[in-house]
């Protein structure tokens, strides 16, 4: 970022639950300090003072599900120097990406009595499918400590950097006993990116992959292990088709599993 001037931050929302941008307000301790480093130029959820672009940093939450949004993101991109997506919706399409395995017309009419008024795409795609994304922050929702770290890094002119290893590393650091080994629970920790602090295993349940695939996400050996433990595709496919259903590593793994078992995908 340019030196001597506070970078101007803008927050934009697409199809999403608001949780990721709320994470910024959830950094209660750091919020005011962050505002000393960054100028909040456009953040509708927090301020009525909506300034026009160009912006130095745009945080984009949510996925693209309508034609209008597909256009809107182009404008945002051209108005922003650095575009960062926040959360599973923006980075992988979110839970609403499940529509790609269904019939959109049928889905819409299930929810709305007058489906003819609904204009929505048959897909829910990540921002990176539409424009160049400079940095992706994973999680459903993102971790607010990571969000603050990244913003501070940008404000100070550094390239943000976050760990991409598996949840297991954090799980062991906090002393949690591995559920796969001790209880035969299907846990996506080994193929899920760190960031949440390995909370699910610490609360006696398997990770459901809300931070998306880790590097590398070795889904094949893990899934065959789960099958050997007696878990059926019926359970494993939905486990992968959650908030990061359309993240390539999870999507491929789930599609392969259901194909192997003759399920329509």
């Amino acid at each position, binding site marked *: 970022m340019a030196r001597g001037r506070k970078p101007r931050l803008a927050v934009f929302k697409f199809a999403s*639950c608001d949780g990721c941008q709320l994470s910024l307000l*959830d950094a209660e301790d750091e919020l005011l300090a962050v505002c000393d480093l960054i100028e909040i130029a456009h953040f*509708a959820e927090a301020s009525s*003072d909506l300034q026009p672009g160009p912006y130095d940093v745009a945080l984009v939450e949510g996925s693209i599900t309508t034609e209008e949004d597909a256009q809107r993101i182009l404008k945002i991109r051209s108005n922003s120097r650095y575009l960062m997506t926040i959360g599973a919706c923006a980075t992988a399409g*979110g839970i609403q990406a499940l529509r790609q395995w269904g019939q959109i017309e049928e889905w819409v009419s299930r*929810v709305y009595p*007058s489906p003819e*008024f*609904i204009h929505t795409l048959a897909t829910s795609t990540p921002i990176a499918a539409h424009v160049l994304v400079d940095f992706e922050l994973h999680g459903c*929702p993102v971790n607010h400590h990571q969000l603050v770290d990244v913003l501070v890094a940008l404000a100070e002119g550094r390239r943000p950097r976050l760990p991409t290893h598996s949840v297991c590393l954090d799980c062991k650091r906090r002393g949690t006993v591995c559920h796969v080994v001790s209880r035969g629970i299907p846990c996506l920790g080994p193929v899920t990116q760190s960031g949440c602090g390995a909370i699910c295993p610490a609360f006696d349940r398997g990770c459901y992959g809300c931070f998306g695939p880790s590097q590398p996400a070795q889904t094949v050996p893990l899934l065959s292990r789960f099958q050997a433990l007696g878990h059926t595709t019926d359970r494993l496919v939905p486990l992968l088709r959650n908030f990061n259903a359309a993240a390539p590593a999870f999507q491929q793994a789930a599609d392969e599993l259901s194909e192997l078992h003759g399920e329509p995908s």
Partner: protein
Amino acid sequence: MSTTDVIEVPILTRVEGEGGVTIRVRQNTIENVQLRIYEPPRLFEALLCGRALEDTPDITARICGICPVAYQMSSVHALEAALGIQTTPQIRRLRRLLYCGEWIESHALHIHLLHAPDFFGAASGIELAQRFPQEITRGLQLKKHGNRLLEALGGRAIHPINVAVGGFYRLPRREELAGLIPDFEWGLEAAIAATRWVASFPFPELTQPYEFVSLSHPDEYPFNEGEIVSSQGLRVPVTEFDRHFVEVHVAHSTALQAVRHEQRTPYFVGPLARINLNRGQLSQTVQRLADEVGMESECRNPFRSIIARALELVQVYEEALDILRGYHPSGPSRMPYQPAAGQACAATEAPRGLLFHDYQIDDAGKIRQARIIPPTSQNQRQIEGDLTTYLSRNLQAKASREELASDCERLVRTYDPCISCSTHFLRVRWEEIP
């Protein structure tokens, strides 16, 4: 003003989710008012179909990042009703505690960062912090307590991971909760101080003949259980929701809005409704505080809902402290169950008001049908009504469009509308009058 005029608030700010308002004026009278929601549909009710019922609390949480616990609570209660699961008193208390965390977080956020700036012409809580550094910092602390509680009990503040059909995945250890007590003792006092502060704000005059609706429980301030009551004398079990409330299609808009079934009239849910209908269930401290700050026993001024929110903040701090102090984990963390076909509904009190869920499940434990009616879709009609009344009264007095538009925005904000959760809202299409 020209004879026909369209006043637009393009983006409602300091609300959760995105929406706008459009007002059409003809011959100096309000022709119509629309709260526009341009949240793209995410089709939750459809994507739930075919999922295992145990996935429901995790998935429905994603409807709203501001009040995920509410979605988790309404969904687990409905599913438990369908399966005939009885939970333990401990699980019930912990669920109340979890809800306390969410109310604290959500109310402290709305009061300090979203709503209070309106009373001082500030654009944001951050700007307001320059004028009221102590108050805003205190508010952030309160908000943080809510989050710490959600983390201790739910694993994290947004989209907690510990809520299961039947109870919790794991009971928190005593130390995990007991550690919060000192903060909450401080917070209780701070919440009282915050209430006095907001009660001193200058409130615009506006009273409306509302029908308030909320849950009500004989022994407690309502969270997860109770009957649906209204200020017009309605008192029915939640299972009769559909007989008294209905989502309708309105002619000028394609949005689904909930109204009273027979009368087709709007109604009002949320803190103001709850406090009006459950004043007797408030603790002694909160009742005294309400009297002290001059909160009417039936308040009909929507701007004063910020006081209702603050009083509720005190109420849940007390409740949370009580549960925290008495917590000794024992018994199962969740009740076992066998999947079976069934249908049931439940409603709980989200920070923004009544949240209704209704599910059908098949014998393999998969969701066959889901229906979710969030608080904001119940308030939407009322918000439009308020705007119409307010504008009709003030159209002459205030000449500038900007002023009127920002008044409208302020009025909408009193409802703390949460638009991201509005699974039923549609994008409104416009035909401009030439």
